[in-house]
């Protein structure tokens, strides 16, 4: 005895559930050293052990909903991803990507001998002593001090029997009255509560199981009687770590064009006639949480930086899948990927950024994809399908062979329609038909080549769709950028006045002056450098903002847009 709570917290891995406690789509309520746990298995087999508390308002996640890829809180529907516990969606603000990295507390997890193991610290030593295989006996909860339970097990071994101690709270021995040797791990639930989790090498027959159960039941009754003789210690006070200062008070930390994540090309395949599919796996662990519509910057060996949308479904964080079209007029980006990248190559990428967020408060969502433009929409449709929300997906391409990610598209089911080999007027006719007149709570997401996007946006407007229901993402800004003007910029929060000369962007001038502003495509297409404008008239040159947003004149893209007035005041 004599192990204090602090020592136990530091010590090691403890079993917190049987593998059998995690049936399909269930969330199991566990506890370890006073800390409540929400334990759930995703459809990909991964077991998540999380603090049992939604970060928003403290509601237990064990009453949440496991949809196989994400855990949804019952109170406000916040969604947390399998593996990372990163928040992917906040329904109260459907138009926004959860801007700040909201991530629930997770614990290291292992599944061995038919038991789920967790540790309260990151670097607990390995569980030693018994082999990988094993059969977990029925768990026996005991209302007694965990150390008392271990001592009770030791005392009741067969006379003269050997004990192999497995610190901090385990022992392999033969209990009097049981058919053989077993390893008993004591789960310290709280200061005066424990669970005995026995493991034997192979599944015993029913008589043997009943014998183990009878002995452990008697042991429980005796230990609880013993425990009643002594004063029970106070329950352990659970620790709730404060959320980061940044999350509680500040807007996004500024992230420049940084490549903080290293990945390996795990798979490369021909995803269509002129499209290469790439599966990018982390060098270790798992990848950061992404939201549908998010993109990554790929830093290529030749120094170029290109943006690609993540096509994954929710909760898939073992790798990111992207698709790269080899452009005939490639400036070196897509050619570098198509010609040079091989499986096993290591690349630097940025963390995912989402400037094309998916609302999930539509009664029906329509996707209109042109060729390679289906990549962000595929990820969105996968998220809606997982949640059982209605959508239709229209994929336009020159031919079936030109349509990327055909099998992935087909897996979306009956909502998918292919529109192949259509001329411009037929395309317009089809888009008009799939849009139809606007009705309440419909949303359309469009991604594809510039001309098709312009066409679809124009048709939507003509059919009465308001700007806020039409969402789009351009691959690139095809407009000629006019850099000829020169003007002044005041940065309100940084208390800095800068001069932007002809030939340079606001972003470039800010960087030269030590302001690390986030950016990604740097051609006015992706939306990463969006900045609030407090004063001045803006010369919008981007393709990210819609007409309503441009008319409001209160935000701008600093990578391409400039001033019409002589001076702009930015909220930076």
């Amino acid at each position: 005895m004599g192990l204090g709570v602090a020592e136990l917290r530091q010590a090691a891995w403890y079993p917190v559930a049987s593998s059998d406690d995690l049936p399909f789509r269930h969330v199991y309520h566990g506890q370890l050293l006073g800390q409540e746990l929400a334990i759930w298995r995703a459809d990909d087999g991964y077991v998540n052990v999380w603090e049992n508390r939604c970060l928003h308002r403290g509601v237990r996640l064990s009453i949440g909903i496991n949809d196989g890829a994400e855990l949804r809180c019952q109170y406000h529907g916040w969604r947390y991803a399998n593996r990372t516990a990163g928040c992917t969606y906040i329904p109260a603000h459907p138009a926004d990507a959860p801007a700040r990295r909201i991530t629930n507390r997770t614990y290291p997890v292992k599944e061995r001998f038919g038991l789920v193991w967790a540790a309260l610290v990151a670097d607990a030593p390995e569980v030693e002593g018994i082999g990988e295989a094993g059969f977990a006996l029925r768990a026996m909860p005991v209302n007694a001090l965990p150390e008392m339970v271990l001592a009770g097990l030791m005392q009741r071994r067969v006379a003269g029997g050997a004990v192999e101690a497995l610190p901090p709270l385990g022992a392999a021995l033969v209990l009097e009255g049981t058919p053989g040797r077993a390893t008993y791990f004591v789960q310290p639930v709280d200061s005066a509560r424990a669970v005995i989790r026995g493991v034997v090498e192979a599944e015993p027959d029913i008589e043997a199981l009943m014998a183990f159960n009878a002995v452990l039941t008697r042991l429980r009754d005796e230990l609880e009687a013993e425990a009643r003789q002594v004063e029970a210690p106070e329950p352990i006070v659970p620790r709730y770590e404060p959320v980061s200062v940044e999350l509680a008070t500040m807007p996004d930390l500024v992230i420049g064009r940084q490549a903080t994540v290293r990945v390996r090309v795990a798979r490369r395949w021909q995803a269509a006639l002129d499209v290469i599919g790439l599966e990018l796996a982390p060098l270790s662990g798992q990848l950061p949480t992404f939201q549908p519509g998010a993109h990554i910057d790929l830093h290529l060996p030749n120094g170029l930086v290109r943006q690609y949308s993540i096509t994954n479904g929710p909760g898939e964080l073992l790798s990111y899948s992207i698709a790269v079209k080899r452009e005939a007029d490639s400036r070196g980006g897509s050619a570098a990927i198509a010609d040079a990248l091989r499986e096993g190559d290591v690349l630097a990428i940025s963390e995912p950024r989402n400037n094309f967020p998916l609302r999930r408060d539509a009664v029906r969502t329509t996707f209109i994809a042109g060729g390679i433009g289906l990549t962000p929409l595929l990820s969105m449709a996968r998220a809606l399908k997982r949640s059982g929300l209605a959508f239709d997906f229209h994929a336009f391409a020159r031919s079936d062979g030109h349509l990327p990610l055909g099998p992935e598209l087909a897996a979306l089911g009956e909502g998918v329609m292919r529109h192949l080999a259509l001329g411009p007027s037929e395309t317009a006719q089809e888009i008009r038909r799939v849009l139809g007149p606007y009705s309440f709570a419909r949303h359309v997401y469009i991604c594809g080549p510039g001309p098709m996007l312009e066409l679809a946006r124009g048709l939507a407007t003509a059919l009465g769709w308001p700007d806020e229901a039409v969402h789009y993402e351009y691959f690139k800004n095809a407009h000629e950028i006019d850099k000829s003007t020169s003007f002044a910029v005041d940065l309100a929060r940084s208390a800095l006045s800068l001069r932007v000369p002809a030939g340079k962007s606001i972003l470039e001038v800010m960087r030269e002056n030590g302001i690390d502003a986030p950016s990604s495509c740097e051609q006015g297409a992706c939306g990463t450098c969006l900045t609030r404008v407090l004063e001045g008239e803006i010369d919008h040159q981007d393709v990210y903002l819609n007409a309503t947003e441009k008319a409001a004149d209160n935000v701008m893209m600093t990578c391409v847009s400039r001033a019409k007035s002589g001076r702009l005041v930015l909220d930076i």
Partner: protein
Amino acid sequence: MGYSKPIAPSLRDLWHVIAASQEVPMGGKRVTTLFDTALTVSRNERLRVARNDDGSLLPVIERYGCIWTSFGSPSADLFPIIEYGESDRRNIIAGSIGVNVSAPRAIENFLDMGHFPYVHTDILGAEPHTEVKEYDVEISFERDEILATRCRFFQPRAALTATEGQEVDYIYRVPHPYCSVLYKSCPADESRLDVIAIFCQPMTEETIRAHLMLSMIDADNTDAGIRRFQQTIFGQDRPILENQYPKRLPLDPRAETPIRADKSAIAYRRWLSQKGVNYGVIPQQLS
């Protein structure tokens, strides 16, 4: 009985609800708890509230269908709800319900619209209409209360006669650390507002009785029907409230993760901090 630290002066001098009037009829008597202290309320020739430990008498008033007392020197009257006095309104106490949660958690839930589609599915909200639109919040120093206006939420069937959804307007007031009053568009008369109030009785830091008061313009529904409706709503909130941890409301801004939709809750937590409220909350640690 023991609450170990003294309650803040801002709480001690306030009126606190201890029972619905209908719970203590003429000749009746009821033992209840306020701030961990057992009290007896009795009604004979007059209404009396006495402490069980030393028998001393406490001040008492009867307002809005409830009985209120105080451990200090309370003001002459309670916060105003002027609609309560209008002659054509039906004033109903819809229930007095025990909940294992702190009073501030219950108030914050009452102020919250984001949970309507998830907790009050198909009644006060329905997926996919989950958006909480921008609204205004102010802390009125003059009236010492919080006011949230321009609150709107999409409801699938705002009234029994409605065939399609519509936005419903709300105004929320928090005129007391443990009480909140909600004004909601009235289906029977567009020019007026129905009033729903929650008065929380802090029995201990982590257990309350919630008294629900309604003041409605409604000629059609029976009292029993109106009570059943409110109790259904509250019955949906209760399992959520009882699964919130910690049970006391943390006032440290870093304890939980607020979003724009939580503006009124952010103002409420700040207001409680400013008032030095120390019961049912986890005060902000000064560092």
